[in-house]
């Protein structure tokens, strides 16, 4: 377990470093920067102190801490898929609009 924890810690430090760089170049907003940092820090805490989730789980009426982590992950993943879906639709809509405007502009009247 300790090797896995060390490996994951290195991985997360790397991600946090990337996030920090992105923030410095203003590629992401302060809000998303904070959310991502918080998210990865939580992952770090949970990995080093697996029992920490048990308190929260017990409080929420879920048997094991690991279960809670899985439940939360699934909710987050579904939410992200939904966001991506909405975003894709928006992009699709925009592409159609571009193609349409261009078709009407270049109409070949003979």
């Amino acid at each position: 377990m300790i090797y896995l924890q060390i490996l994951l810690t290195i991985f997360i430090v790397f991600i946090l470093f990337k996030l920090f760089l992105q923030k410095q170049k203003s590629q992401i907003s302060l809000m998303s920067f904070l959310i991502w940092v918080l998210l990865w820090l939580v992952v770090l805490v949970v990995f080093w102190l697996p029992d920490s989730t048990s308190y929260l789980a017990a409080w929420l009426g879920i048997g094991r801490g690991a279960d809670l982590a899985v439940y939360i992950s699934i909710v987050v993943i579904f939410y992200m898929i939904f966001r991506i879906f909405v975003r894709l639709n928006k992009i699709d809509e925009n592409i159609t609009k571009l193609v349409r405007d261009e078709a009407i502009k270049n109409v070949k009247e003979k």
Partner: protein
Amino acid sequence: MNIFVIIPAYNEEKRIGQVLDDLSVFSYRLVVVDDGSTDNTAGVVAAYPKVTLLRHKINRDQGASLQTGNQYALGEQADVIVHFDADGQFLASEIEDMVKPILEEGYDIVFGSRFLSKKSKLPFLKRHIIFPLARLVNRLFLGVKTSDPQSGFRAMTAQTAKSINIEQDGKAHCSEIMAKAFEQKLKIKEVPITVIYNRFGQGMGHGFKILKDILFSKINK
């Protein structure tokens, strides 16, 4: 009276010539929307000097093509817009029947129906399974009460084309247009039409795709 016939075409080089021949007999303004075809559809259409050709650079599907045609026709001061298929399954001579209720009886939109009196040769599966299901979906989810759930032959006033913005790029535009017509409480009429099936058209798989598009559009709003 400015009557525009919009013909969306995707890889129809073999059939669109015949369709345009049939339509050229009448005095309608013909607009073909070439939906990013990879064959010679545009080349065939170019041989008809009176036909306006709009070209989508990439394929955006039928609903998107119809909206492109609508938008163009509205810009050209169309009075009535007719949607017609490029694969020769509708009869050019029946456009007159479709437009008549608009010009003479003040209807806003007219849908062609394969199920009112005229004999269309529908494949068994379509008549007895796919369409009854589609009708049920239309009724339950969209409040659409028409005898033909997926009619691609329709005529509408310019005002209707303005108020119904086709947002479904895919095949779900049929249901979308019907739903919006009912929602906006337009004066709707169904007219019997003949449909000639060259091939099966949209199979079961397409049916599910349409269903998916309709459901997702509800979530997305």
